[in-house]
Structure formats: C-alpha cells, structure tokens
C-alpha cells in the first residue's frame, strides 16, 4: 500500500513538472511583452525580466505620439466594428437558430444540413466574390464590408445557439401558445431571455474574432489609420517602430491591444471554455 502511495506522489510531481514547463512556454511571450513595454528603449534587449528602470513612457508615446495620433482612432474603430459585428451575430444567429430548433416547416433538415456543410468551405472562397460585390456597391474603403456580413447569420453561431435552444423545455412553448403568443413573442420573450449563457458565449466569440481579425480589414479598408482597426494598425506600425528601434513602444501597443480581451476573458472565463466544449461534444 505504501509503495502505491509513493508511486502516486511521483506521478503527481511528474504531472506538475510537465504542466509547469508547458505553462511557462505559454506565459513567457506575455511576460516578455509586458516586461519590454515598461523598459527604456535603451534596455529593450536586456535579459532581465524586471524592467530597470521602470517607465510608462512607452504607453504615453503609443497613445499620443504616433503619426496622425492614430492609436485612439484605431482603438475606437476596433470597439465600434467589433461591437456591431457582435450585435449582428447575436441577433441573426438567434433568429435562425430559433427557427431550426423550434419551428416545423418543410425543408428544415435540408436547410440546416446545408448551413452546417458551409462550415467546411474555406473563407477564402467567399472573399473574392464578396470583394467584387462590395466593389460594385461602392463600399470598398468603408467599414461596411466588415459589418454587413455579420448580419447574415453564420453556421457556427446558429449551431451553437440551436443546441442550447433544444434544451429549453417545450412545455414553455405550449404554455405560451395557449396564451396566444405569436412566433415572434415566443422567440423574443421566451427563448432569448432564457438563453443568456449561450448568447453571452456567442457574443464573446464573435467580438473576439472581429477584434483579432487581420485578413478582412486588410482587404477592405485602406491603410488609413483613422479608418482601420487596432489589429491592422499594429501590424502596420511593426515595420516603422522596429526600424526605428522602438520595440518598447511596439510592445506597449501590443499589450494595450490585447487588454480588452484579457479583461473579458478573466471575467467570463466559463463562457469561453464552455463555449468551446459545447461545440465539440456532439453534433
């Protein structure tokens, strides 16, 4: 019995050691980012993790001193575009999910299967026709090509919410029906309020994806720091700031750009993790 316990202890220690090494690999880039962002430019390649001397100068510089005072504009654009995309996704995915989960009509299974199948289509395939479509609508160079597609639903969000809607007891629908509720009432007054956890999950995921998106803003928006997003802006300033030997300012910008999502993540960690698990468990 004693040997068994000792063996258990050794296995636990080994587990900690392996997980610890992994965790360090995960953390080091973030620690390094924060560390460099608080250093003087002269110390940017120093090997010490703790900045000495410690300075917030880089944060002031990135916020105020970029050409055209770009940083506040970029931040505003990112919040605006990601917020609108989030609203569009919640609204239109919930509408579709409600129909697929609750309403009976001819062709429902076929349409739903078709929607799911589109998950397999690489997004590059729709990029070219969409670019041409928006070009003919005269919208290239505006933020609309990023925002509008969020209002036409999507396989991931619709699937996620449908799975959740299916768990809501059907007796509630029958009861609402007895009271003379219309389809819209049932959707808006019964399903939406009862699905806050799933809606929060979709909100977080769509906001995150929009905030981190590089390819689409790169295609649709001009390299104008008053129009584009924080993510693209950072990629743009990488070249300038590195050339000027200002890794410290760049790291301050990088940290500021991930800060909103880090805050959301620490507040709503459960939604993040359950959202991933939920889509993975069963079709």
């Amino acid at each position: 019995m004693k040997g068994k316990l000792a063996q258990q202890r050794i296995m636990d220690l080994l587990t900690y050691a392996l997980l610890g090494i992994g965790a360090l690999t995960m953390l080091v880039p973030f620690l390094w980012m924060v560390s460099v962002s608080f250093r003087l430019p002269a110390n940017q390649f120093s090997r010490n993790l703790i900045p000495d001397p410690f300075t917030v100068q880089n944060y002031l510089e990135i916020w105020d001193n970029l050409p055209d005072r770009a940083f506040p504009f970029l931040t505003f654009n990112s919040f605006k575009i990601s917020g609108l995309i989030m609203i569009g996704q919640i609204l239109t995915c919930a509408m579709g999910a409600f129909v697929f989960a609750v309403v009976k009509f001819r062709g429902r299974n076929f349409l739903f299967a078709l929607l799911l199948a589109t998950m397999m289509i690489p997004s590059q395939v729709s990029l070219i026709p969409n670019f041409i479509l928006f070009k003919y609508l005269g919208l290239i160079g505006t933020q609309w090509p990023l925002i509008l597609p969020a209002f036409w639903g999507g396989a991931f969000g619709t699937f996620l919410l449908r799975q959740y809607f299916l768990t809501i007891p059907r007796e509630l629908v029958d009861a609402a029906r007895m009271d003379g509720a219309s389809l819209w009432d049932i959707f808006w007054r019964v399903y939406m309020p009862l699905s806050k956890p799933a809606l929060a999950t979709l909100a977080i995921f769509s906001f995150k994806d929009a905030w981190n998106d590089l390819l689409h803003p790169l295609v649709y928006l001009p390299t104008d720091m008053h129009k584009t997003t924080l993510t693209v802006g950072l990629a743009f300033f990488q070249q300038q700031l590195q050339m000027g030997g200002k890794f410290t300012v760049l790291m301050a910008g990088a940290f500021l750009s991930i800060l909103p999502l880090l805050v959301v993540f620490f507040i709503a960690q459960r939604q993040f993790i359950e959202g991933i698990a939920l889509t993975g468990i069963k079709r």
Partner: protein
Amino acid sequence: MAFGLKPLGRERIWLWGLLTPTLIGLVFGTIGSLLATLLLSFFEWDLIRPPKLIGFDNYVALFTNESYFRSFKNTIIFAAMYVPGVLVISLLVAVLMNRKIRGVSIFRTVYFLPAVTSAVATALVWNMIYGKDTGILNIFLESIGLNPVCWLCRDNAMLSVVIVNVWGAIGEGMIIFLAGLTAIPREYYEAATVDGANRAQQFFRITIPLITPSIFFQALISAINAFQAYDYIYMLTRRGQGDSTVPVAVFSIYRNAFNFFKMGVASAQAIQLAVLVAIFMGLLLIFERRFVVYE
C-alpha cells in the same frame, strides 16, 4: 421525432422573416460565393476589362507556375506538421490536467491565454523571441551551450511558424479533449486495474478508443485552421508586396486577387484550396468510419 411548432396561418411570414438573414448568408456568403468563385475561375478578369472565358487555364497555372505550386506545397507541409502537433500536444496536456491535481484551473487559464489574444499582438513578441542576435530563445540556447539558430531565415521559417501556430492552438484543443476525457466513466479504469492492466495499456485500450470522437473533431478543426492559416505567417515572414518567406496558399490567393487583380487565377486557387480541404475531410471520414467509437 424532432419537436416542431407549426406556424399558424399568417405566421409563415414570421418564419421566413426570421430565416431571412440566414438565407441571405447562404446566397451571398457561402453557397452563392462558392458558385460565383467557381464561375470566376474559368475567366480571365482584372476588374477593369470585360472578363474573358479561358477554360481551365487558371487551374493548369497551379502546376505550371512555380510560385503557385510552391505555395500549395507549403500549405500541405504546414498542415502535415501542424495538425499532428496540435493533436498530440493538446491531448497530452488534457490527459495531465485530467489527473485531478490541485491548481488545474490556473493551468487551464494559462494554456488558454493564446487562444484569446490576437495573433498579431503575440506575433510581435514572437518576432522578438526569434531574433537572431538579441532574441531570448537564442540567448537561452547559448546559455545551455547550443549554437544560435536563425529562426526566421528561409530554411527554418516554416518550422518556426508551425511552432507558433501550434502554441496558439493548444488551448482550444486541450478544452475539446478535456471534455472528452471527463466523459469516460471512472469504473472502466477501476475494472481494468482489477484485471491487472498497467497505465500504458489503460491509455491505449481505454482512453484512446473512447475519445476518438474528440480526436476526430479536433483533427477536423485543426485541418480547417491549417489550410487557412494566415495571421502568424503574415506577421513573422512577410516581405514587401504581400510576399513571404513561407508563402502558403492563402498568400498566393491574396496576392493574385488584391495585389495583381488576377481574379480568375485567385478564384481557381481558392477552389483548389477548397478541394484540398475536401480531400482531407474525406480521409478523415474514412478514419472516422474505421476507428471512431460513438457510444
């Protein structure tokens, strides 16, 4: 029997009203775009002059144009390293975390961090870490007596980029596998222990077969991501004019469409990429039929 509410009379309007965004999405976003891209792929078009029908020339170009071919080859090499990398490492992490030790939630948070933060921001640090003379990775290697490596030079860039992409994907993979692992009943292991099975036998005879659905799903997700990987590669390997030291298929499509305005070639490449994804899915489905156990 699937539960279904029947729309009453005029409510059919609501039904189709609620479905409208999804239908528009299918027409403009996905199915319609697929057909449009397919159509475009048979034309030569620069968005200025009228499109000219040229048959399969755009498809043949993949095999005659060296740089197009190289980009697709890179994508396949990338996927061949990335997909197994993500599967093996996230499974390992998930198995370790499933051992019910203290502090698991902290580990989970840490491993999930890269999945939350933007690839652009973290790539900026990786760029510093990979630095040839000043990067901490080389400083570390030298401190343990190894030679420094030029991580982002031509010969090593592919490997370096795969490493960062795997690093960024472990968090999500780990969650998928943890969900699968926690669903395995403890009794199976207890029974196996009674029968004298050792840990390795338990892992390969119980754990692996029972999480094949998770492995299948994660392989699917990783493959879709691998064929579309862009952000890290762009940030770590880009050169002027949308070029890269590790140009993958997405780079070639992007350049042809938006730098050179060769809409036909880009469309054909997008279709070819979709076919590549479809072939991979087909292989996975064969794997699923053969190995995946659904309870």
